[in-house]
């Protein structure tokens, strides 16, 4: 049962990745995506400050970027 679940999950992931080839927009349709606030790392200063707080208060770090914290707070 677990294996079937795994297989189903892998199938979904692979189909999504393959499906990527047909997704997307033409260069002239990037008006909204090109906005500063649509960048995946918009507000980078806030994100790095948050990472520092959560790195020092929780057992998890990274994900968006590298997991290393560079401080002795954890």
């Amino acid at each position, binding site marked *: 049962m677990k294996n079937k679940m795994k297989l189903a999950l892998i199938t979904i992931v692979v189909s999504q990745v393959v499906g990527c080839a047909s*997704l997307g927009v033409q260069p002239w349709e990037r008006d909204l995506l090109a906005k500063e606030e*649509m960048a*995946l790392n*918009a507000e980078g*200063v806030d994100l790095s400050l948050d990472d520092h707080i959560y790195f020092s208060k*929780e057992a*998890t770090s990274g994900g968006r970027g590298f997991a290393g914290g560079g401080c002795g707070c954890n």
Partner: protein
Amino acid sequence: MQLTKKTNIAAQLATATCVLLGSAQTHAAPTTSGEWQFDTAILYYGETDRVSLVEGVVSATKDFGDDHIFNGKITYDGLTGASATGAVAQDAVQTFSRPSGKGGYQVAANTTPLDDTFRDSRVQLNANWAQPFSSGIAGGVGVHISKEYDYFSAGLNGNLSFDFNQKNTTLSVGSSFQYDQIDPVGGKPIGLSSMPMRPYSDYDDDDEQSESENSDEFYDSAFTTQYQSREKSADKNTLDVLVGLTQVLNRRTIMQVNYGLSVADGYLNDPYKLLSVVDTTGVTQDIVFEERPDTRTKHNIFWQTKYAMNNGVVDVSYRYMQDDWDIKSHTVESRLRFNVGESGYLQPHFRYYRQGAAEFYRPFLLANEALPEYASADYRLGEMTAYTLGIKYGQKRANGDAWAVRLEYYQQNPQNAGFAEPEALQQQDLYPSIKAMVLQFNYSF
């Protein structure tokens, strides 16, 4: 004209950050050499009765033309306050040695033991360079160096990204190596060894602390030897690998999936964390230092989607983490940006976090049981949920500068991961909640 230039640089900055963090580069417009762009922030973080932190950041970015971008960043933080040692509360006054061995402190009955000598300042420097190599291929390198009183960290990272499918799909791979050295106050304690206690019972309270620290007659030679024989420093290496896929789904939606592997090797203990060893009734018999394994391998899956509304942005993300300490965690986060008027925006922020306990997490040890190989009572390795609620308001000024202010509330709720509590501990709050406020100002020019 000025406005356009600023906007471009900001977009480049975001792109550069993307690349250097190991994320995908999503858009890039050809540009000419620009002016320096500065992003600054000051943040206050304050916990009720515990730690408070002030952190300042100045980040400077310049496009030297054709997306050859340099970013330098300096971060300073100053920390004061008290943090939980890991020892349990008792119904009597408890006495602990300071980490330095110079003096001690007392904790009132029915109070979670906190070490209030927590005081540090840290300076971190980051430098990053990003540039395209050929059509559809870009890369970046970065370094960081960070120093605080008892800690030093230096790291290198590199990243490559490959655009295909008309730049609708980007694959990125990145790696970082970090070296950390810790010089614990009082030296490196031996894991699970008893905390040295002075042969006296006349420990001073905080107000008289400085007096006791200066008093040589205060030390018993056997007591002092325990500190002198300790190693002075310890280190660890951390290697990260990050693979990311970014996909434009349609005109309004972009999605990212990252897989991150992080392997740490070396001294992973917190030298200041303690455990209480209690008898079957829950009364403390001994206090020992924690001991963690000397390797840790973490796996992260991170998914993020952003959707452009007509008047704002929806940003949702989910992260799953699992490591070989048997910690599993889930993080869900969302930011909803609503544009207000011509140049402002209001952005509520929500974050929920849940983690399971490390396999060696113990809220306390039992005196009638053999010492385990590893044990830590650090609540940050225990079972916990946490949430953040925040609001941010930002505005772009007529001259192209931008400012923002955000206010957040963060609460951690540690929980019992299934440990039976002896009688004397049942009346104690072994898993107190931690409540914090965050206030931040940003200014970009």
